């Protein structure tokens, strides 16, 4: 068998660059798919009866008084409500969430405002007499973490920081809020 001619170093370098580039692009694609699928996998796990850990976040409070870190609420049951001021069902459910916050003092209701102008969100809070805490998810990163696809959307977080009960897509009713509170052990 004839000996193989030595490879040109430029060919080797070009091959390495090409393989690295393709591997990098695949890595990027895999990362994108994994981060996009995370939110829907949370909902799927919850639907199967699991209690996956709620994605953590720290966001600025809408009233400008610092930030809210979800981790700081560990030990207390939390209702997370994703909303926007231009969303019609959000207007309908805001008084129900406010009523739940007043009826269950142990329950921490947190509004996560996203894809919205901060000024509009503040006007909304004032107009609907909302006194529970609201944060502004400027980039929509938290929205993405939870896999929220529209507004409003509500999640329940237990005292251990795990998602519980079920994901509510669309308006919450008094009944679902009462059921959610009961699932979190709030009476």
């Amino acid at each position: 068998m004839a000996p193989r001619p030595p490879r040109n170093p430029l060919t080797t370098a070009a091959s390495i660059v090409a393989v690295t580039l393709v591997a990098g692009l695949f890595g990027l694609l895999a990362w994108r798919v994994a981060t996009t699928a995370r939110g829907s996998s949370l909902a799927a796990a919850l639907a199967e009866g699991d209690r996956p850990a709620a994605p953590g976040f720290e966001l600025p409070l809408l009233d400008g008084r610092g930030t809210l870190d979800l981790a700081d609420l560990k030990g207390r049951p939390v209702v997370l409500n994703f909303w926007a001021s231009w969303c019609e069902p959000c207007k309908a459910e805001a008084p129900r969430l406010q009523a739940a916050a007043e009826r269950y003092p142990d329950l921490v209701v947190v509004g996560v405002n996203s894809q919205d102008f901060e000024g509009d969100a503040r006007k909304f809070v004032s107009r609907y007499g909302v006194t529970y805490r609201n944060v502004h998810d400027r980039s929509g990163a938290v929205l993405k973490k939870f896999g929220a696809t529209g507004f409003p959307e509500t999640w329940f977080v237990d005292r251990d920081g795990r998602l519980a009960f079920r994901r509510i897509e669309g308006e919450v009713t008094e009944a679902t809020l009462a059921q959610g509170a009961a699932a979190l052990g709030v009476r």
Partner: protein
Amino acid sequence: MRRLLLIIVAALVVAAPAAASEQRPTLGELEAEVMCPTCKTLLEVSDAPVAERMRVFIRSRIAAGDTKSGIKDKLVRQFGEAVLASPPKHGLNLMVWLAPMATLVGGCVLLAWLGQRASRRRAGPEEAVDLDADTEAAIALALADADR
């Protein structure tokens, strides 16, 4: 001198509309450069409620005399950098601009090199090979046999 003058005039012709657009932007221009955050499409093709609200905001900022980049900055402060149709040219986003150019330049260099190598192969060896006297005699003998 005339060439220099031509270059200056050409540069002015290209730069003037861009400068005017920056100072006095129109709603249409900004709609083509800004994304709707809910539907992830250009604002110009979106009829989502938030898109309508953004149009109202842009109109009010244009009326207030804001520049195009000023309006975009305000939108970024509310919706994050994803609101821009073209990613900003800094940080990791710079890769989006540099990667296609680097790939294009790299591809051209690779093609040129491959083309050069192929043409060199077709042309055969450039230098004559020195043979010793015995080998030359053997080749001459073989060629003579073949001619017969």
